[in-house]
């Protein structure tokens, strides 16, 4: 219920258009009505027609010999006229009837402005009398000198009274509006369909996807919006691309001084005999390696971020992991860590080879780094029903449960972790996994360390 209320409160374009439509309809109706009524007020149909006059004149002529009956009949007639006019019995608001014979009044409606006389027969005239304005018209009988004058009030404010008495003109509109609402709503909804298409396309995007919208609407207004959005996306794309290129360039530039430092220190090592000095040099080399690794990871990060120009192709994952493990083995051997790989036959997945490589490297390097000396890192690749599952387990300290989401953030490091690291490795793993429509989850391995699991959706032909 509350949701429904909130839904009602939020402004919608459809509602806005509907309200605008209804307001416009009402306004047009009112204008039309005003015009009609104003016309009626200026020249009331009762005065312009001659039937009423004819009837009264006939009555007056025929009942000339029975003045009392005539008065009674005219009295009734006047009442009927006033009722028909709709202004009630108040002469200031309603029609009045004055009958003269030889310029002498023989009948006038109750409270009629008797001072009103027309100067011309058959013409509607506006006449001032008793401080008011009246519209009146007089006709003279052809057979006698009887004259009939019909008088209606003509003041501007009378219009409203008139309108009030003619209220039934508003009714049709009030009755119509509810019936008009549904078709109006439906038509607007249908008209807005192309809009929804565009909205859907935008909402279905992944957060990194900055490619232009593929939906090109035929409608001008929408096309303008899509074009503007595409322009905006292009600008965002350019700026993020520039930023990436800048970071990559900076990282590349860093590599030469790092290489120089490393080579110089290594060359120096053979000249140094004292243990302390050797240790200091080893420290420089270690720091240098760390800096080099960070630079590499920055570059990997820049490359692993989704770009439009990447081509997904079938990759032999088993072979790739074997090759990467072979390349990383020296790193493990240094700390006497045994790498083990278990896999079914060759498993193919669709992906980007280089980025998958950085994912594998980061997972295995992490496992090796956090394993205790002489430990074991187990890599396991298996084909499941719907996916291919890669698992890397170590016997290290693992990652506490509450940090398992946050370790994927760039430069986030477990505050209790003594090992040096850049904090980019898992961010890269996550970026690459997302790019391959898979996800990474961390759990506890059989040996109490960390187990990273990546599920790749199956290659269609597999």
């Amino acid at each position: 219920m509350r949701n429904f209320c909130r839904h009602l409160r939020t402004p919608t374009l459809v509602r806005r258009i509907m309200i605008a439509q209804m307001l416009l309809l009402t306004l047009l109706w009112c204008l039309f009505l005003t015009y009609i009524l104003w016309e009626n007020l200026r020249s009331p149909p009762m005065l312009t027609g001659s039937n009423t006059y004819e009837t009264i004149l006939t009555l007056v002529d025929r009942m000339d010999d029975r003045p009392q009956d005539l008065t009674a009949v005219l009295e009734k007639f006047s009442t009927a006229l006033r009722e028909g006019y709709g202004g009630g019995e108040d002469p200031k608001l309603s029609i009045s009837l004055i009958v003269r014979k030889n310029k002498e009044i023989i009948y006038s409606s109750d409270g009629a402005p008797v001072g009103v006389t027309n100067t011309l027969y058959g013409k509607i005239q506006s006449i001032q009398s008793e401080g008011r304005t009246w519209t009146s018209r007089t006709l003279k009988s052809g057979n006698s000198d009887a004259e009939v004058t019909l008088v209606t009030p003509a003041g501007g404010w009378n219009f409203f009274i008139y309108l009030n008495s003619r209220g039934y003109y508003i009714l049709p509109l009030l009755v119509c509006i509810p019936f008009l609402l549904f078709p109006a709503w439906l038509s607007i909804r249908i008209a807005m369909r192309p809009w929804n298409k565009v909205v859907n396309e935008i909402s279905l995007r992944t957060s990194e996807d900055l490619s232009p919208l593929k939906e090109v609407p035929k409608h001008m207004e929408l096309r303008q919006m899509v074009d503007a959005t595409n322009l905006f996306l292009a600008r965002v794309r350019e700026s993020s691309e520039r930023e990436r290129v800048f970071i990559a360039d900076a990282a590349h530039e860093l590599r030469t001084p790092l290489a120089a430092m490393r080579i110089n220190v290594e060359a120096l090592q053979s000249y140094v005999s004292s243990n302390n000095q050797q240790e200091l040099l080893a420290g420089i080399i270690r720091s240098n390696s760390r800096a080099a690794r960070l630079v590499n990871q920055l570059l990997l990060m820049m490359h692993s971020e989704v770009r439009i120009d990447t081509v997904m192709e079938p990759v032999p994952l088993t072979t790739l992991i074997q090759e990467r493990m072979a390349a990383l083995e020296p790193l493990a051997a240094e700390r006497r860590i045994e790498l083990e790989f278990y896999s079914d036959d060759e498993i193919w997945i669709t992906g980007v080879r280089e980025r998958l490589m950085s994912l594998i490297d980061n997972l295995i390097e992490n496992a090796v780094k956090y394993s205790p000396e002489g430990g074991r890192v187990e890599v396991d690749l298996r084909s499941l029903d719907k996916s291919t599952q890669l698992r890397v387990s170590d016997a290290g300290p693992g990652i506490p449960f509450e940090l398992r989401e946050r370790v994927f953030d760039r430069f986030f490091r477990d505050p209790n972790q003594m090992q040096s690291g850049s904090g980019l490795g898992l961010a890269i793993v996550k970026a690459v996994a997302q790019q391959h429509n898979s996800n990474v989850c961390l759990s506890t391995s059989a040996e109490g360390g960390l187990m990273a699991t990546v599920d790749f959706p199956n290659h269609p032909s597999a």
Partner: protein
Amino acid sequence: MKILLIEDDLDLGNGVRIALADQGLDVIWVRRKVDALHQLDVCVPELVLLDLGLPDGDGMSLIACLRQQFKGIPVIILTARGTLQDRLCGLDAGADDYLVKPFVLAELLARVRALARRSYGFQNEVIEIRGLSLHVPTRRVTVSARNVDLTVSEYALLETLMMRADRVLTRRFLEERIFGAKENMSNSLDVHMGNLRRKIGDGYVRTVRGVGYVIDTVPIQKGAG
């Protein structure tokens, strides 16, 4: 061995020069493309180490030039740009090997030696690791001066492993190398490896489970330390 080092960075060039000179290699170091071309003519180096980012011209064009005029000279590219595309570009242009900065001295030396061996053959080359020696031209294998008879496949396997000592060779690589196998020959590889180990004795070939095999120049002690 005469090596021409083309590197514009002062510290890196100097460092590499001294480090290689310490290893008994004769290094000529230049910092510009012009000087490199001049040196190539004057002293005919046996190997070129080339940095791609030179101030007076692109390294790639220099490789092309090398390939045209000095066909036989092996080239190792030193570069800060290490993506697959960059590597392929460099190798397509005619470089023999590729080192991404920052590199380790040992790696640089290994690459230089390996390339020299590849380019100038293994004449009278004996590869020797911990008493296991392999005389390439005659295909003679000895363990502690005792001759060992190996089948063709076993020898090929051992030679492949010894020439790339300290590098883990994947099962796939070995299979393709030894059997030219396209189909799955895993069992066959294990059988040959088993036989080879029996003949040369344990402690030489180390298995990396599920990945491949390696011969370590320095043995790795197992167990917790």
